[in-house]
């Protein structure tokens, strides 16, 4: 197992004063508590993007990009608007091709299986690679329970209450909604809705969780809760998180990749990217000279 990244840049802010109505997430799962190290509970898979190209019609949006996402770690993608961060992530679970006129080429390996291989079923890919979107999008006609169960119901008729509970705990939402599982999902606050969407994605036990600016539509407190979550989620999934907020990347990610105009400029441990990057463009971006 690789070393967890140093926590030097994270969490200058103490979160103790923010009331958390739920017991520590570790209570329900017996996990050895090391000092700062995150021991994986379940070995997730690595994602390797190899020479990815993506187009929107004629517009060549991602150019020959190669990037790895280490298992049980969080990798952030940062870069100015239009640099292709979301596109890369959407190519990983093959959502990119759902846009009319869009196409992608190259390889995306989950461990050593290429998701773009002709023998692979795109539906199966999306089951193993979950996604959380920028704007919380719980299904408006479903209750909280049904929202979480939605993915599970695709494959089995009966969905156990315990499965839903597990997913909601994993998203840090259980205590807040356990008494109103039958209420509509859209009745929750924005931050809660996003955690509901995370629970929904977790319920099908994916290996990878793609998060496309998951907190950009949320208030600061909800944002911090989501960031806390990322730390916990690393135990079970590999995380790729797109963010335009550099401080967020610094807080949650083990590794950070900087994209510019559809190309990967630099990738490395988060601390290095933010304090001592190799490429001058990276330095200019993280010091705020542009973007």
């Amino acid at each position: 197992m690789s070393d967890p990244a140093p926590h030097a840049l994270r969490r200058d802010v103490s979160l103790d004063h923010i009331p958390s109505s739920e017991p520590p997430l570790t209570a329900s799962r017996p996990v050895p508590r090391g000092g700062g190290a995150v021991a994986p509970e379940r070995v997730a898979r690595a994602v390797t993007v190899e020479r990815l190209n993506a187009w929107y019609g004629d517009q060549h949006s991602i150019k020959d990009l190669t990037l790895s996402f280490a298992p049980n770690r969080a990798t952030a993608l940062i870069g100015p608007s239009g640099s292709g961060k979301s596109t890369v992530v959407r190519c990983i679970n093959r959502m990119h091709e759902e846009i009319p006129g869009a196409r992608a080429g190259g390889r995306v390996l989950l461990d050593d299986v290429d998701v773009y291989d002709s023998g692979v079923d795109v539906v199966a890919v999306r089951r193993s690679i979950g996604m959380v979107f920028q704007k919380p999008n719980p299904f408006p006609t479903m209750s909280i329970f049904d929202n979480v169960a939605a993915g599970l119901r695709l494959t089995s008729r009966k969905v156990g209450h315990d499965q839903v509970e597990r997913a909601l705990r994993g998203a840090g939402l259980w205590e807040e909604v356990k008494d109103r599982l039958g209420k509509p999902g859209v009745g929750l606050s924005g931050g809660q809705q996003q955690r509901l969407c995370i629970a929904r994605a977790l319920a099908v036990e994916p290996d990878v969780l793609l998060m496309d600016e998951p907190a950009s539509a949320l208030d600061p407190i909800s944002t911090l809760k989501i960031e806390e979550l990322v730390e916990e989620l690393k135990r079970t999934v590999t995380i790729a998180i797109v963010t335009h907020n550099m401080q967020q990347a610094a807080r949650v990610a083990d590794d950070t990749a900087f994209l510019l105009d559809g190309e990967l400029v630099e990738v490395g441990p988060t601390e290095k990217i933010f304090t001592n990057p190799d490429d001058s463009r990276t330095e200019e971006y993280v010091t705020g000279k542009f973007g």
Partner: protein
Amino acid sequence: MEAGTLVPAGERSSALHRSPAARLPDRLLKWGLTALSVGVIALIAYFFIKLILESRPVFSQVGLGSYLFSADWVPSKQLYGALPLLAGTLVTSAIALVLGIPVAVATALYITELAPRRIRGPLTVVVDLLAAVPSVVYGLWGFFFLIPKLQPAERWFADAFSFLPFIGGNVTGPNYFVAGLILAIMILPIASAISREVILTVPREHKEAALALGATRWEMIRMAVLPYARGGIAGGAMLGLGRAIGETIAVTLVIGNAPVIGHTVFQQGYTLAAVIANEFGEAASDPLHRAALIAAGLVLFVLTLGVNAVARAFVLRAERAVTSPAGGPLAGAGGRNADSRMPT
């Protein structure tokens, strides 16, 4: 816009107050148009009242309850029980809904979600073309083509499934089923157009959420599209129902116009609208008969008012961000393509 003639030179440099004479055309326009609009309301109200008044003779003779619920419609004997007419109206409309709405929703789903992009436009035009065929032509075609061609199949069906209620027994040429089938075809375009409008309003993010969970295309439609659109689709179905209830000419040509309540769907019947069209000639000289027909018109009016009110409630609730009234002549034109936004 020629500013020169829009605001003549003299007016531009005049004082800030316009003379009463200059304001007159504005006032005329406003009050003229207001009067016109109020006049429309008054007209409809007037017609409604007149309908009631002219049908009173038959209600005083027969009584409202008896008119609606007695099963004997024999004008020659001054018997006016409209139950067969009501039954026929409801049965044919029900058949129209059962046959027509699933097909309408299917076409809407196919056009918006499943069809290759290139054929979506032409397909929409073709489906909407069904609305361009006038009802008398539907009746003509139904009379000469549908009735004879369907009879053998109807006979086989009636024999094979005679254990089902309302099936089995004698099969006449013109019957409820053919009328219901033609009505189904006639309500198809409007139900499809409204369903299309509503399905297009399903936000892309819900569809993406379903796909990202690992849903097949059909599962995505079931999870994200249909639940969201069902209110509007129901509204479209109700509008179709309203149309089916009031349809006259096509029905009267294929239903047999027998003032009885048929025992099976393959037997002849009558509807409220058909009886008016058919018996008007005879009723010219018989005031009571005339009143009975006008009363049938009144019942028809009230029925369609009710159904359309329910339909409106459904459609309005589902309309949200849509600006053009669903079902109007411009519905379906320039359909929004919510998929063309790109992520950053």
